């Protein structure tokens, strides 16, 4: 799956390729592979209030899944399972919305906007916010959705409601809204990229063969954009599964997520517990990616 650009024969006196790739490789070895290995390892360590104790124990996993074999007396699952389920629900909801929205917007850009300059301009308009702060973009909902925000003011002024709505901000609604606001771009870019590679003659052929607009959309455009859809989906699902910043800022401290659970565990210095939790999160994410790639074989698409 390495990129297929034209390769050069190595010239005499040129640097050995591994020497060139060394600093890059070293960064990922030191700051990615070793830390991941440590997370897996420390997940099996013991700990007390003062120190981590090298050992091999399943205690952390046991503690994580304590009481998870059955529902409690109120019929609820244990904390770990309910947190994972809640995070998964957010991930699926954010995915569904960004998928439909991102696909529609990319379709408009790729097939309805006719001049290349306009296409580039509108594409850049969609991507610029990616280079600005996520926290600022979240904070910017306060003047609109707050108790005295613009939405509540308008609704009260038009007598649609007589008390301000509380669920607009610091609620599951605002968390989901923030996900859509922040991450739809991750769907638009890869889907647009796939769509731009679709041979326009195929659409004409579909039309000539009598396909309706919907039919050519469903039978030509969607299958041919699936690699973009896959890349966007993986990005959004993993980013939401591991999120703790958005839930923290937009959830008003009321909403649990796996990422936040890990963060809280580290703040109490329970590193082995956090590590075990991170391993479970990682396995969940890998399962999701595996499920998606079974639907679309990415290697055939590139």
């Amino acid at each position, binding site marked *: 799956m390495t990129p297929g650009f034209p390769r050069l024969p190595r010239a005499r006196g040129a640097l050995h390729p591994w020497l060139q790739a060394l600093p890059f490789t070293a960064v990922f070895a030191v700051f990615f592979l070793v830390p991941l290995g440590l997370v897996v390892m420390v997940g099996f360590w013991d700990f007390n209030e003062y120190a981590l104790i090298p050992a091999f124990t399943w205690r952390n996993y046991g503690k994580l899944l304590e009481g998870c074999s059955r529902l409690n007396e109120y019929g609820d699952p244990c904390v770990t399972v309910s947190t994972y389920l809640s995070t998964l629900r957010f991930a699926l909801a954010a995915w569904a919305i960004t998928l439909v929205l991102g696909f529609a917007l990319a379709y408009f850009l790729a097939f309805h906007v006719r001049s290349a300059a306009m296409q580039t301009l509108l594409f850049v308009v969609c991507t610029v916010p990616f280079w600005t702060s*996520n926290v600022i973009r979240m904070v910017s909902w306060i*003047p609109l959705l707050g108790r005295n925000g613009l939405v509540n003011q308008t609704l009260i002024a038009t007598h649609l409601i007589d008390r301000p709505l509380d669920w607009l901000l610091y609620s599951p609604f605002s968390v989901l809204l923030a996900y859509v606001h922040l991450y739809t771009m991750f769907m638009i870019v890869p889907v647009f990229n796939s769509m731009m590679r679709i041979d326009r003659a195929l659409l004409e052929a579909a039309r000539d063969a009598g396909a309706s607009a919907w039919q050519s959309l469903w039978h030509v455009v969607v299958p041919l954009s699936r690699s973009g859809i896959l890349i966007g989906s993986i990005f959004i699902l993993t980013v939401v599964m*591991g999120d703790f910043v958005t839930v923290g800022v937009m959830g008003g401290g009321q909403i649990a997520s796996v990422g936040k659970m890990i963060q809280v565990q580290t703040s109490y210095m329970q590193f082995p517990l956090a590590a075990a939790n991170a391993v479970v999160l990682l396995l969940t994410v890998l399962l999701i990616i595996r499920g998606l790639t079974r639907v679309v074989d990415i290697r055939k698409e590139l």
Partner: protein
Amino acid sequence: MGARVRGPRGPGFWPLAMLFALFVLFLYGPVLTIFVLSFQGPDGGLTFPLNGGPSLHWYRQLAEGLGVVDIGAAFRRSLALGTVVMGLTMALSLLAALAFRKRLRGGGALFHVTVASLIMPSIVVSLGIGLQFRLIDTGIKDLLAAWAPPEWADGYGSALGLWTSALGAHLTWTLPFGLLIMFAVFNRFNPLYEEAARDLGATPWQAFRQVVLPLIAPSLVGVGMFGFTLSWDEIARTSQAIGDVNTLPLELQGLTTTVTTPAIYALGTLTTAVSFLVMALTMLVAAGLRRRQRAGRVIG
């Protein structure tokens, strides 16, 4: 693209155009409101209607500091870190992409690791780096306790910090973007220019310095912009991988729960302005490089 058929708009054009317009409003509208609200007078609040102004009152408040948080120090720290991350992202991605152009044994594995870093939940990476440096701390303290005078062990702080763990955490986030962009660039790069240079007797270094680099320079500047802006706004990977000092976005995240004045909007406007400044500079530099390319007839 070229000129396409001029005909009636296809079905769905207007609804989709409406959707697109609404989406752009959705993207930019909220941020514009905080820009406006940040220029209120001293009586201003977090929501409309506007109170007083336009004034720079809340910017002056910001300059004086918000509570115990030293915004200026965090600002300078993030600026310095972003600049270093920018330089390293450009240099390391370029070198690695050059290596990938040759026969690179194990290149497939390296590419997979890079993509894995891109889609790995940031909290996991951050936790791992945090753990790593804490274990390093433990090791160093044990060593000092065993072999060095006692005051050394007491004086030792932590290996966690802006220029160690945080820098590494940022690079795991910016380098994948850098490498993927460089791949896209070299995919469209015609190797004949380079071969021609070598046929004319250029050494590999001369061919790189005088032919390849000028051709890819505008894209490389773009990689630098990615490096800076991604680092400037990074929170998730930094959160567990930084010691006592905080970067600006981390301070900002903390302030969202404690500051209830438009000062936070002023801070938001300021950081966004820095991002936009970097974007504008990038475009200027890239345009300048392209003009020089054409004027200098680098590729005859």
